[in-house]
């Protein structure tokens, strides 16, 4: 099991007065007073080996006093154990920025969404919303439809003085949106100009892989300092999760990391299954199908990464080669699930439908053909002198930095940290298949490139094993779990009426872009009370300003593409 045992922390109860140990199948938590929080986290990091920072946020209980329950999720990579630290607060917390830089970004998000003040935070600015925004959207008293206060005249009215009559004249009331002045205030607040020019790189720029807004303070071409402004794609997915049923929320996971929808689906479904305690009930066939599809999606996602990465470094042809293969994968996925991008194929308890006839043959043909293509691209890039000069020694991340910045996924593995959840806490069929976890040595851009290429090969191996396992299964094998007691636990394909008992869990899946974690807090009923999503992309991105220091603009694309963020997941 991935969770630490309560005995591990017995010795701490003497040192920390009021420390309560809580051990459940779905979570192990340490409850501590706010005053002792920082000290406990330091001890956990330095003495107990919980070096990797995973996530932090709060849960809002408007009726309770103190109102907010804060949680910190930490991971011990060497012993493969996870623990949650919890504390109660009325509205302020000590900042953990000295211990983990990743905490800084998590705290900014928490400040933005809940209005928690962090003492000692160096740069407490809003993470997603703009500076002049008044409200804290994730608090329970924030209405789902927002505050309809701003009146937005249309361009026709402003420019031509048109006043529309009749049906055309509807009252344009909206939730407040940032104006240009708001954005300028935000921009000024983020970066103290220290060098020649401030270059606005993004939000709409081909090199940023999405609507991200970077500020580069440039001295010539050298980046003196760099900052990131997020939130252009913020949709409040976590707020939506609180108002949707568990199965309904599945479609929002598609739209977070839209390049690896199947992996996100799988992570969410597994999280809910773990919370329900029905992981064992899911039929073998469903598990194999999910694993196989997730690995196909991983190849798909890495192909897009490879293509755009090569494109960023000027190799346009590789982009088209990669997209050609990706198109085939998309067709396979479309044939099996019926959708190409936003898939929602998995269900709590299984998958939506059985594999169609001939699906396995098509996948086998792809698996047979794909390594040849991969080898061809490698011969174009991997030993190419220009490619090496652009990649080797650029954007080096050390092992310690992986923990400090909370990096996961291929970025962590590129630096030699073998943190792969498929191995560390196998979900679905990952425990039954055989594969290797590639790790890098130097932690530079080139290592991350090699790691991702090798991951595609390993994914192929997994797919191959899943295919042969599925071929052995009879056609009539079930693909959806059967509830042992339909009165207590109602499992169905549409998921309506699925009641989740009181409880909480943190569960995560290995996405192509890092760990996608879900912290689910349920107070019973059909909807979760609070869902905190740990976006791998966001924490991977938080190392970017550090890597960009003293690099030139041309390295910006190489480093950013090697971190491979997807904005849909960062902003949620």
């Amino acid at each position, binding site marked *: 099991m991935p969770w630490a045992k309560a005995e591990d922390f017995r010795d701490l109860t003497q040192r920390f007065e009021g420390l309560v140990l809580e051990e459940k199948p779905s979570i192990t938590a340490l409850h501590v007073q706010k005053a002792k929080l920082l000290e406990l986290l330091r001890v956990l990091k330095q003495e107990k080996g919980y070096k990797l920072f995973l996530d932090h946020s709060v849960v809002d209980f408007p009726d309770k006093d103190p109102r907010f329950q804060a949680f910190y999720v930490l991971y011990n990579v060497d012993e493969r154990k996870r623990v949650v630290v919890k504390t109660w607060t009325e509205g302020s917390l000590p900042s953990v920025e000295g211990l983990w830089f990743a905490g800084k970004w998590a705290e900014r998000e928490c400040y933005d969404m809940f209005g928690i003040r962090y003492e000692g935070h160096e740069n407490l600015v809003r993470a997603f919303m703009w500076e002049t925004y008044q409200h804290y959207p994730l608090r329970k008293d924030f209405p789902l439809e927002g505050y309809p206060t701003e009146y937005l005249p249309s361009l026709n009215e402003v420019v031509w003085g048109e006043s529309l009559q009749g049906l055309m004249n509807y009252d344009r009331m909206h939730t407040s949106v940032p104006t240009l002045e708001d954005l300028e205030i935000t921009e000024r607040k983020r970066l103290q100009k220290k060098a020649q020019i401030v*270059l606005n790189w993004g939000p709409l720029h*081909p090199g940023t892989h999405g609507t991200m807004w970077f500020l580069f303070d440039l001295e010539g*071409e050298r980046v003196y300092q760099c900052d990131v402004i997020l939130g252009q794609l913020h949709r409040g997915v976590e707020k939506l999760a609180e108002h949707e049923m568990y199965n309904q929320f599945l479609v929002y996971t598609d739209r977070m990391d839209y390049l690896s929808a199947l992996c996100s689906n799988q992570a969410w479904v597994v999280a809910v299954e773990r919370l329900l305690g029905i992981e064992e009930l899911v039929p073998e066939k469903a598990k194999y199908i999910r694993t196989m599809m997730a690995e196909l999606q991983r190849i798909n996602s890495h192909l897009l990464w490879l293509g755009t990465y090569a*494109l960023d470094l*000027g190799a*346009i042809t590789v982009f088209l*080669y990669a997209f050609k293969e990706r198109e085939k994968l998309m067709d396979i996925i479309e044939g099996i699930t019926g959708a190409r991008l936003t898939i929602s194929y998995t269900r709590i308890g299984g998958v939506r439908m059985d594999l169609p006839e001939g699906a396995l043959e098509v996948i086998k043909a792809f698996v047979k053909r794909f390594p040849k293509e991969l080898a061809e691209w490698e011969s174009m890039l991997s030993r190419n002198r*220009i490619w090496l000069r*652009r990649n080797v020694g650029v954007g080096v991340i050390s092992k310690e930095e992986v923990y400090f910045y909370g990096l996961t996924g291929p970025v962590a593995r590129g630096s030699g940290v073998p943190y792969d959840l498929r191995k560390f806490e196998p979900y679905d069929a990952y425990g039954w298949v055989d594969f290797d976890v590639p790790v890098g040595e130097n932690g530079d851009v080139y290592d991350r490139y090699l790691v991702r290429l090798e991951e595609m090969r390993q994914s192929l191996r997994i797919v191959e094993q899943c295919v042969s396992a599925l071929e052995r299964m009879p056609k009539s094998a079930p693909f959806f779990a059967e509830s042992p007691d339909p009165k207590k636990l109602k499992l169905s394909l549409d998921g309506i009426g699925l009641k989740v008992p009181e409880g909480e869990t943190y569960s995560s899946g290995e996405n192509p872009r890092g760990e996608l974690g879900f912290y689910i807090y349920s107070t019973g009923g059909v909807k979760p009370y609070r869902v905190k999503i740990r976006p791998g992309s966001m924490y991977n991105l938080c190392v970017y300003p550090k890597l960009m220091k003293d690099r030139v603009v041309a390295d910006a*694309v190489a480093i950013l593409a090697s971190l491979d963020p997807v904005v849909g997941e960062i902003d949620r």
Partner: protein
Amino acid sequence: MEGVVFWLILTLVKILVILAIVLGIGAYLTLLERKVAAHIQRRPGPMVVGWHGLLQPLADGLKLITKEDLFPRYGNRFLYNLALVMALVPAALVFAVVPFGPEFELFDVKVKPMLTDVNVGLLLVFAFGSMAVFAIALAGWASNSKYALIGSMRKAGIVVSYEVVITFAVMGPIILAGTLSTYEIVQKQIQQELWYVWLQPLAFVVYMFAMLAETGRVPFDVQEAEAELVTGFTVEYGGMKFGLFPLVEWYIEVLSLSAIAVVLFLGGWSPINIPFLGFVDPLFFLGPFSPFLWFVLKVSLLFLFVLWLHWTLPRYRIDQITETAWKVMLPITLVNIVLTAVFAPLVWE
């Protein structure tokens, strides 16, 4: 008097013919490039307009011309437009000294198939080449955009470094030929029965690299690196004004520099050379047209080589490019000059 009028008319005709060929071919090379790129990338390329997309350049031109002419706020309109002229004119002027073939007689008049055979032809070529940097610097400056500015500064840095390299690279052939006139250089190669590429392989390689750098072709296309700078110094141009820059840089300049490379290293219009022994002409049956065809063939081969690189390689970083120029290529060319000076007397005999 009559002689002067005749000479004027002849020159005018030459100008028109060369301009028409250069600009027309320049436009059609876009189609060629797209087709070559498409086949490298395993796709058919433009197929809709005309047979195999043969009318595509016309459609593109029509589209570009009819586009709205946007101008950036707070830009300098005079410099903005001047940059276009500064880009197009020097690049086209290089063709004034390119010899397309040997002298021939037409109606008892000796005609050299080049605009003017000045005795400092090569000097002109490189003087015009360095003018390109003004166009780019002006375009970047007048656009009032940070991206354009960074792109133009990158390009200016490259052009300045590679002008030095390319000048030293062509010193070898100049020493061997003992003249700066492009026509004479080809004549010398025919007389000495030697393409200079056989004796100057280093200079040829360096020249090709410098040519890629000057024209902003991959792997040196940092000035318009799409991923970083969108399109670099052309980012604020629109319509045909935008179309002109790639036309000039990627096609006309590549063509002119390839033509100069053919003149300097590959014996101009002469057929296949066996060093010091003579020439073999598999195209002898074309009679007087064979030299012209050889010239065209060689230039197109070089152009295709450039395309091949463009659609295969990634790009360098700006500091790596200038570093290569100053630390690797310049020393190589200097060594090459010394070596050439040593064995040049042998060739002259």
